[in-house]
């Protein structure tokens, strides 16, 4: 892509350096203020979550009178309906959310890219079959299907990640397929085939790298959706019962919302900030990869 001619510029002329599309995109991303804000917020949250997972303490331990309002008796965020310290919960509750969100997203991206790539590259009956399977998975209401899977195989971090990953891949598959359909007709793919490259090499080494920009954007958004899924499952009491998570905190305290607003409010803000920062990053990547879209 970087077809820079190596003609020496005149000595006085400003030096024009060749920029790769990737570094250009990175530059655009850094100039995008919402995207940078999202990145900073996300990194801060990540640091807090890592700190919490290491030194947060036991979120299930009852430490004080139930429903102590925030700021009283030295409890910054107050205590919940059992008298557990909400600060501890907030610190430790992010880890399962982020771990499950990330691994579920990773699983769904791997499945989605594989299926989409095969469907788009080979076409014909392979495409028809794989797209029928994709449609089948889109017919199942995602959260309901995930709930059923988690219930059948008893809730844990592993089953949650698995269930969420299984229900989320169809969109990635469709996107990958569309990209592969488009790119496989391009000249450099024909060229690769002409020099005798095998299908496997063309798919993963020639087409996939060129399909990456939209896939990276969609992967980022997938992480956000996966986090919301995890929060929803834990809220319903279908998360890992031995791990405190933000969604679980909301679910556990929901019966008492009219007595105490804080035990549900703060974990919700934490979930919101995480997803919000991730989607700002996704939007920023989208703008960076598609400069044409910026006028919109």
């Amino acid at each position, binding site marked *: 892509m970087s077809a820079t001619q190596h003609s020496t510029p005149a000595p006085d002329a400003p030096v024009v350096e060749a920029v790769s599309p990737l570094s250009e995109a990175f530059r655009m991303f850094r100039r995008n203020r919402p995207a940078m804000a999202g990145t900073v917020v996300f990194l801060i949250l990540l640091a807090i979550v890592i700190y919490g997972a290491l030194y947060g303490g036991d979120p299930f331990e009852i430490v004080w009178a139930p429903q102590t309002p925030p700021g009283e008796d030295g409890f910054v965020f107050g205590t919940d309906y059992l008298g557990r310290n909400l600060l501890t919960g907030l610190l430790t509750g992010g880890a399962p959310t982020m771990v499950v969100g990330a691994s579920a997203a990773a699983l769904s991206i791997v499945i989605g890219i594989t299926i989409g790539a095969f469907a788009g590259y080979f076409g014909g009956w392979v495409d028809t079959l794989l797209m029928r399977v994709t*449609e*089948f998975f*889109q*017919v*199942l*209401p*995602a*959260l*309901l*299907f995930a*709930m*059923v*899977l988690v*219930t*059948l*195989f*008893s809730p844990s971090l592993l089953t949650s990640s698995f269930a969420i990953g299984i229900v989320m891949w169809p969109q990635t598959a469709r996107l990958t397929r569309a990209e592969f359909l488009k790119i496989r007709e391009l000249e450099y793919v024909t060229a690769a085939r002409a020099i005798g490259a095998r299908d496997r090499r063309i798919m993963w080494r020639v087409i996939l790298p060129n399909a990456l920009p939209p896939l990276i954007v969609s992967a980022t958004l997938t992480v*956000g959706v996966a986090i*919301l899924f995890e*929060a*929803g499952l834990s*809220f*319903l*009491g*279908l998360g890992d019962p031995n791990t405190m998570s933000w*969604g679980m905190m*909301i679910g556990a305290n*929901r019966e008492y*919302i*009219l007595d105490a*607003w804080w035990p*549900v*409010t703060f*974990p*919700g803000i934490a*979930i*919101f900030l995480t*997803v*919000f920062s*991730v*989607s*700002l990053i996704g*939007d920023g990547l989208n703008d960076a990869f598609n400069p044409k879209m910026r*006028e*919109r």
Partner: protein
Amino acid sequence: MQTLGYILRRLIYGVILMFFVVVLNFILIRLAPGDPAEVIAGDMGGITKELLAEIRAQYGLDQPMTTQLWIYLHQIATGNLGVSYYFDQPVSKLIGSRVGATILLVLAAQVLSILLGVVMGVFSARKPNGPVSAIVSVISTVGYALPVFWTGIMLIILFASWIPVFPVEGMVSARHAATGWLSYGWDVARHLFLPAFTLAIIFLAQYARLSRASMIDVLGADYVRTARAKGVPEMRVIFKHALRNAILPILTVAGLQFGNLISGALLVETVFNWPGMGTLAFDSILRRDYPTVLGILIIGSAMVVVANIVTDLGYRLADPRIRTTGGRR
């Protein structure tokens, strides 16, 4: 005639999809750890060998797998979704009494989010770099990132204690039960508002973004300039000339959203105690009431299949150009 054939093909395809949903359900029951017979017996209290054998015979659990699958398919095809372990009622009856409430909630949320989303999108498309546009894009990003169950709870806190104009729980208030259908409808509508609005917030974002993008495209078209040049009032240009073309992509996406709407409704229903399939799913999942849970999965999938067919037909009605291509995309 062509449309009739098309509907028929779509229906057959829908039935095939549902067949696989049922097969998947069957596989899921068999994959579940533990003996289903013991689960049932455990609920009845006291497990004896005779009781287990009786239950196995009653549910066909002593037959070979293929026979069991055949029995299961036959049952489902005749509308028999099994008997709930916990509620001790036919699952079809349980779901039948709940499905209306869910459909009402889902449709209300869909209409609300499309209306609000399109209005937001249209107004921000008029000046893509103006302040309205910025506000709309902030609202839509925020709405997308809010956990729907949490939004619901926040609205309950707000409306229960500070601004008590909407009821925050259930579908009808007890005192309205006996009065006429008009006041009943009004009562349901008031109960419906908060859950539907909560659910609409997530989807609002997508419709706003989509209608903004397609309105910007359409507003740049020649025929819009012509309409403006001949002095058609601006509101008429936007809502009559431009929106009609800009709405098509929104219809497509709206059709694809039904599965997600049902997922969202599950959470919203449990928050607002809305008596639909979501609360039923939640109750039965907590009690490991597999027949009910799987019945809900089947009916939920059927709702998505039907919604997709209806959307396709609506799309063909809205855009005459599609009819000639025979529905192939």
